[in-house]
């Protein structure tokens, strides 16, 4: 997991173990599939299109499991494949019109059917434009289509499969309510389009027909038609997700029609693929992003003995599409190979029977034999001599849509996780069983804190207050009383620069920091502020104790004033003591604003066994932190971020050093060289690095260890 994070600003893709994704093969073409449905199968409105369960990684078992069965009668195979028997649809009397000519009843009819529409719509019908963009961006996520460059008619969409979500999501309706019929249909789980058909009056359908976006019948030849004129199309139900996969010659919704049409024209007649056959990517926000794979199909009667096709996948989400590229390429390539293989067989058989080259040469000069409309374009079905072609394509495309949709899930991340995040996550995991009460009950924690028994286990010692969010490390601790420290800058003001510097130095070095005060809240706030200087993993706090605790148990220790601190500690250079006495005078720090008034009743004395020499350079990070704190142009928020960055910078050095010394066990001289490369060869910096090394996440450490032991080892689990 750790190295799985893509440094994408938005989200990452994680492969799921969904069976659909893992299935890995395209259903065979020899299998019939796709139960035929009633004529009125088109989506009633654009807002129903949605890519299947993209966020739910493995919600849906592949419903097409059975598709790969090769034997058995067609009907049962269909049933097995799709979970839907190909039973005759009901309510025949309610049907009307051929499937191709359906247009949505809700969207305004658009007079001009072709590519122009997408551009034109915005101006002509702003309402429709808005609706389209909403339906595409929010819900419609993918369409797969087969396109053909017809010798007579140019680029044409032959067959396309859409994802249809049902029932209609709440609030998405645009005057086209699915009604209860839809509900009933879902309950029965069958393929009954009848209920939906009743929801629309035939009259409505008739008017829709006139505005159908599809090309006129007269403009169609065998070559650019897939389903016969009266064919209702194919539909597959995914019961688990109540998603339907619907296949037609053209999408019925005018906006989708024009998007597919545009993608088809671009894929076949505009975009250049080196080598002509192959995958390309193009698109834009408005018309969607397109994966297109062009290919030839052999045809002995075609002018160049081959015809030009493409399979396109259109999505509105560019990143998703690009991430799906290898998957789509592999599967679509598989579909294409199958088609080409079949067509080649047909072609070779035909050439054997009647060599076209010679025949054409012979008839070349017979006038009027080669008229423009002379050659009847042939359908793909006849080119591959596969009567089940469209049903098979439907299953393949639907499978593709489903598998592609459940392959990847996206996770919201605000950039790469910091080391702190990881440590916190680990701690969270350790504390999982009792973590519920911790989530945001700061009060509870505070109640607990002062009464910590002597034998407080390591668990409590290293407990991280989870109120600071996992994603942002800046302390968002809210003061409820006035006598508290609010930020490092505040503390620096209160203590004065020299004292603060000494204190900070000890904090960064990992020395024990002891605060003595009657006011536990004050101590608590001081620790909350000081801890932001250190990586989370380096912080061990005992907020308030009635007896001294050893340095190995905590580096932040709060004590009540009367507690005796052992003398060796007091004289040690590895400890610093801050005493908060009640100040005799009312205002020690006149510079402070009114906020400080409550603190002004205290006088702070910072002492250590070995005071830091004033001319000592100190760790680099300390100087940088001080610079940030003194720079009044930086707001508190900026300073916080600055600290996060500085810590991350030095944590990275720690990681390098860790790998170098602990994992690779390199000799001293090398380490010295490395340190100078890192800009950390001074004694203070080295000490700091060594201390911080204790704060590395287990994940990281074990990853490095295992990576060394076996270079091919997979990433450690989180």
């Amino acid at each position, binding site marked *: 997991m750790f190295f799985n994070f893509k440094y994408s600003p938005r989200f990452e893709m994680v492969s799921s173990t969904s069976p659909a994704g893992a299935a890995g093969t395209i259903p065979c073409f020899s299998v019939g599939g796709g139960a035929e449905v009633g004529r009125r199968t088109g989506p009633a409105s654009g807002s129903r299109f949605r890519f299947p369960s993209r966020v739910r990684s493995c919600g849906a078992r592949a419903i097409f499991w059975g598709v790969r069965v090769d034997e058995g009668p067609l009907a049962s195979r269909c049933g097995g494949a799709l979970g839907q028997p190909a039973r005759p649809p009901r309510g025949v009397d309610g049907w009307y019109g051929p499937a191709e000519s359906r247009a949505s009843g809700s969207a305004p009819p658009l007079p001009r059917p072709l590519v122009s529409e997408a551009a034109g719509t915005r101006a002509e019908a702003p309402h429709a434009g808005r609706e389209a963009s909403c339906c595409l961006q929010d819900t419609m996520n993918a369409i797969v289509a087969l396109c053909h460059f017809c010798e007579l008619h*140019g680029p044409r969409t032959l067959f396309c499969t859409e994802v249809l979500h049902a029932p209609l999501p709440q609030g998405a309706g645009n005057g086209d309510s699915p009604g209860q019929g839809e509900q009933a249909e879902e309950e029965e789980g069958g393929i009954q389009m009848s209920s939906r058909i009743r929801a629309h009056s035939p009259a409505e359908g008739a008017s829709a027909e006139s505005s159908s976006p599809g090309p006129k019948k007269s403009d169609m030849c065998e070559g650019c038609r897939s389903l016969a004129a009266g064919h209702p199309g194919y539909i597959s139900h995914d019961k688990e997700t109540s998603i339907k996969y619907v296949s037609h010659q053209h999408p019925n919704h005018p906006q989708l029609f024009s998007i597919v049409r545009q993608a088809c024209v671009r894929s076949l007649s505009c975009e*250049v693929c080196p080598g002509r056959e192959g995958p390309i990517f193009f698109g834009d926000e408005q018309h969607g992003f397109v994966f297109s794979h062009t290919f030839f199909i052999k045809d002995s009667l075609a002018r160049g003995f*081959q015809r030009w096709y493409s399979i396109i996948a259109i999505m509105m989400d560019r990143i998703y599409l690009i991430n799906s590229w290898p998957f789509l390429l592999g599967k679509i390539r598989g579909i294409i190979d199958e088609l080409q293989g079949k067509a080649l067989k047909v072609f070779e058989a035909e050439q054997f029977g009647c060599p076209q080259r010679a025949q054409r*040469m012979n008839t070349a000069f017979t006038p*009027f034999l080669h008229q423009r409309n002379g050659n009847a374009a042939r359908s793909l079905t006849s080119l591959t001599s596969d009567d089940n072609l469209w049903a098979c394509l439907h299953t393949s495309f639907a499978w593709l849509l489903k598998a592609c949709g459940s392959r990847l899930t996206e996770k919201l991340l605000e950039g790469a996780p910091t080391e702190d995040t990881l440590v916190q996550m680990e701690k969270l995991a350790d504390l999982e069983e009792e973590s519920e009460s911790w989530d945001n009950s700061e009060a509870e924690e505070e109640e607990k804190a002062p009464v910590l028994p002597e034998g407080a286990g390591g668990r409590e010692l290293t407990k991280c207050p989870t109120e600071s969010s996992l994603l942002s490390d800046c302390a968002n601790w809210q003061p409820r009383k006035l006598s508290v420290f609010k930020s490092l800058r505040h503390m620096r003001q209160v203590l004065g620069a020299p004292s603060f510097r000494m204190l900070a130095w000890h904090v960064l070095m990992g020395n024990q920091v002891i605060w003595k005060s009657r006011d536990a809240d004050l101590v608590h706030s001081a620790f909350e502020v000081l801890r932001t200087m250190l990586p989370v993993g380096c912080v061990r706090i005992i907020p308030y104790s009635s007896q001294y605790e050893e340095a190995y148990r905590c580096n932040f220790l709060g004590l009540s004033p009367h507690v005796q601190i052992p003398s060796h500690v007091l004289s040690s250079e590895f400890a610093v003591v801050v005493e908060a006495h009640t100040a005799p005078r009312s205002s020690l720090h006149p510079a402070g604003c009114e906020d400080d008034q409550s603190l002004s009743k205290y006088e702070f004395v910072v002492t250590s066994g070995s005071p830091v020499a004033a001319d000592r350079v100190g760790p680099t990070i300390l100087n940088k932190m001080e610079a940030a704190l003194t720079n009044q142009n930086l707001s508190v928020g900026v300073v916080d971020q600055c600290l996060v960055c500085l810590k991350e910078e030095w944590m990275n050095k720690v990681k390098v050093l860790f790998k170098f010394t602990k994992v690779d066990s390199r000799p001293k001289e090398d380490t010295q060289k490395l340190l100078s490369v890192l800009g950390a060869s001074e004694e203070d910096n080295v000490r700091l690095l060594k201390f911080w090394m204790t704060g590395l996440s287990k994940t990281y450490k074990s990853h490095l260890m295992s990576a060394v032991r076996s270079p091919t080892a997979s990433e450690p689990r989180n």
Partner: protein
Amino acid sequence: MSQVLGKPQPEDEDDDEEDELVGLADYGDGPDSSDADPDSGAEEGVLDFSDPFSTEVKPRILLMGLRRSGKSSIQKVVFHKMSPNETLFLESTNKICREDVSNSSFVNFQIWDFPGQIDFFDPTFDYEMIFRGTGALIFVIDSQDDYMEALARLHLTVTRAYKVNTDINFEVFIHKVDGLSDDHKIETQRDIHQRANDDLADAGLEKIHLSFYLTSIYDHSIFEAFSKVVQKLIPQLPTLENLLNIFISNSGIEKAFLFDVVSKIYIATDSTPVDMQTYELCCDMIDVVIDISCIYGLKEDGAGTPYDKESTAIIKLNNTTVLYLKEVTKFLALVCFVREESFERKGLIDYNFHCFRKAIHEVFEVRMKMVKSRKVQNRLQKKKGATPNGTPNVLLQ
């Protein structure tokens, strides 16, 4: 050009002149320079037909027309030496095929072969961009088919294009006439001419001039027609014609063509009328010369070019006519028809040819200077990242 063509002069004077030919060394005139720097010669010898003062956009010749009218065939036969029979197996064109005719040939322009099925007046396509840089629009009509639809398309195309760019030459190829009888050809041409111009008149656009050609890839008519299309795009054409006129009248030559050797397009001829047979003979002669020198003229390892400044050929026909071919530039050849009795004074012809050749070089020298200075400009422009032909919608092959 100031050189007066006239009587033969002593050889030594000729040599002296050779030395005075300052600035012509670029063209491989000197014995050394030709081999020394063939590439620069090749590059510089390219003639750019665009207006010298306009930006560096090669003039486009568009091939438009309905599907299967023969556009791709024309392009392949004229510029790729494809045999006409092979065109039977050409695929239908699915996207605009753009081809530069400059590296291989003296002429320098782009040919855009359009797919017949796609409506480029659809708003998705930027047809204004297509027509803006266009020098000539060739509309191909299949004469063996019913041409009513083609005429409607012709009308639409011409009027739209004219609105964008009034400088386009509109050329209508009445194509595949090999399938028509002679009477039928004339009748078809008359009919198409009539209808097309009537349509324009009805639209109030009489000022648009359409030129009509009867063409077929199975004979030389397509080369002839293409020659005329290209000639109209050559700004130096009157000068070249004039030079040829002076040359033939002083040398007793019947007819002379200046040929682009690679495409067999003639870029200029004298002002006497061209008849088809003469033109075909010239084409055939070029083929013979190139074929022979390909077979016998190249070195063992295939090095060398079949056409260089030594290239020359004389073919005597049995009707007292002599065909005489001589190299003019790397890409151009002069082919003359001479009566046998005139050809007896070959010295005179050669001398005059020498003058003519020099004059031609001078004509194009002006051009080269323009091209050179423009190249410098272009380089500067390119640095700025200018894309002169950027088209958002139509991507070309």
